[in-house]
């Protein structure tokens, strides 16, 4: 049994093997691996007795369940209206510059992905940035750089 198969099995032991266990298991794999590999999805399908297409079809519906490899840290910048008004473009440009990638891409060392998000729900405190599950409201380009530096230090 490979590592990921083992992990999926463990999760299925925790959440059960019914259809409504699917989301928590998908979320657990993403939490651990940052994305859902083909191998992981096949393992989940086997464990829950679903077709792999069904698992992929469900996973690919959701923005937070990535089916392509992502960096160890996922930076999401809210692009919705009030964050736009408060200057999210400057944040994105600064981070693109710093990380040498475009929005939607992952750095070659695999440490960061920079993704857009549709409303992170901080409209009164935009622009807002979410790194993994940590939220940074009222961010400035300078603050964004500082935060990413912190993650850089923490990420081996």
């Amino acid at each position, binding site marked *: 049994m490979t590592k990921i198969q083992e992990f999926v099995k463990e999760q299925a032991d925790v959440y059960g093997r019914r259809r409504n266990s699917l989301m928590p298991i998908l979320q657990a794999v993403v939490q651990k691996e940052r994305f859902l590999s083909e191998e992981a999805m096949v393992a989940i399908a086997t464990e829950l007795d679903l077709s792999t297409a069904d698992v992929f079809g469900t996973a690919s519906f*959701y923005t937070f369940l990535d089916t392509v490899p992502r960096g160890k840290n996922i930076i999401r910048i809210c692009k919705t209206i009030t964050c736009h008004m408060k200057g999210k473009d400057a944040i994105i440009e600064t981070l693109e510059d710093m990380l040498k990638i475009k929005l939607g891409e992952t750095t070659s060392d695999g440490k960061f992905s920079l993704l857009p998000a549709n409303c992170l729900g901080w409209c009164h405190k935009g622009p807002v940035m979410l790194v993994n599950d940590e939220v940074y409201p009222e961010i400035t380009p300078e603050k964004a750089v500082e935060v990413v530096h912190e993650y850089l230090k923490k990420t081996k």
Partner: protein
Amino acid sequence: MENKIKKVDLIFEKVDQLAILDKSFKRSSDEIILDVIDSGLRGRGGAGFPTGLKWKFARNEESDQKYVICNADEGEPGTFKDREILTQVPEKVLAGMALCGKAIGATEGYIYLRAEYNFLLPMLHEKMREFNQQMKDRNFEFTVFVRSGSGAYVCGEETALMESMEGHRGEPRNKPPFPTQRGYLGKPTSINNVETLVFALMIANYGPQTFKELGTFDSRGSKVFSIAGDTPKAGIYELELGMSLEDFVNEFGDGDTKAVQVGGASGFCVARKHFKETLIGFEGIPTGGSMMLFNSSRSMYNILHDYLEFFEEESCGQCTPCRVGCQQLLKGIEAVKRGNKSPAYLETLQKLSDTMRIASKCGLGQSVGNPFNSIINNFREEIIY
């Protein structure tokens, strides 16, 4: 200038929620439901269905199992008021769920939290454990679970949310049957917004009269507003319903407000000339709570473009009017702006948005016409030139 906006403090007020529950558990389901009906409370997620009736329908269903769901994935930019409620008074949300459980006869409750707020999970899990123990100590059979979403705006729609909880794509179901008839796992389910559940608890505490005295005939009570955009007072406020938009702008505007988007992305955009006659509430413009102010430095074309891009990306794609409609509206205004289509094409697009309103399966596609038509009608020249 006289301040005509009335601030209220029912939602964030600290109360002994367990004492309220102890008092309520001694009453019958019907008594609890009658109070909620009498109070006139309507759902605070946006659609505004009478909460008491929803509970009554769920109660009247015969079933071995029923569920309570707290919808903490209202994807509107109004969602941040729900986050604030969950952060500041999670105990009251949980107690509201238990009250609903008692009223409809459910023994399980779920909080469905949007993925964007996952940082609240550790706290919510702790509160949940504490609360479940408190219910056990009282011999009241009601257990709360917390489930997390995965980033899909449409999952704020109640049936899409339940699909997601069941492990499917978040695609809305046909209604009827309504969730109170066949909801989560096919069982009768009362699904309520975070704020609604807290109001229900406060109605159980103070009685329906206190709530009924606030607001207007059709819009009883107060409401938590999320205020954002060009305002020096961005933030979260509980205000009495039924104020005029003019009073609202006087209080929260920056002196140069040219438009207010009432009800978030799927609400209506009201232009300055209509502020006076526009009432915030179900008699006028209903809102889930999101108010976005725009001053004259903003291009309404860009704002509409942002909204349409949002809807195009967040449409679940299941039904054609919404999936294709969103794409065509966006392409359409771009073509008009570039001069590839004549301004008269905007009327064709408005007809399309009307079709979407009638033919789309759920509230997402049905409501795209609200911002679209109101911005086109009020700011036509900004869209064209």
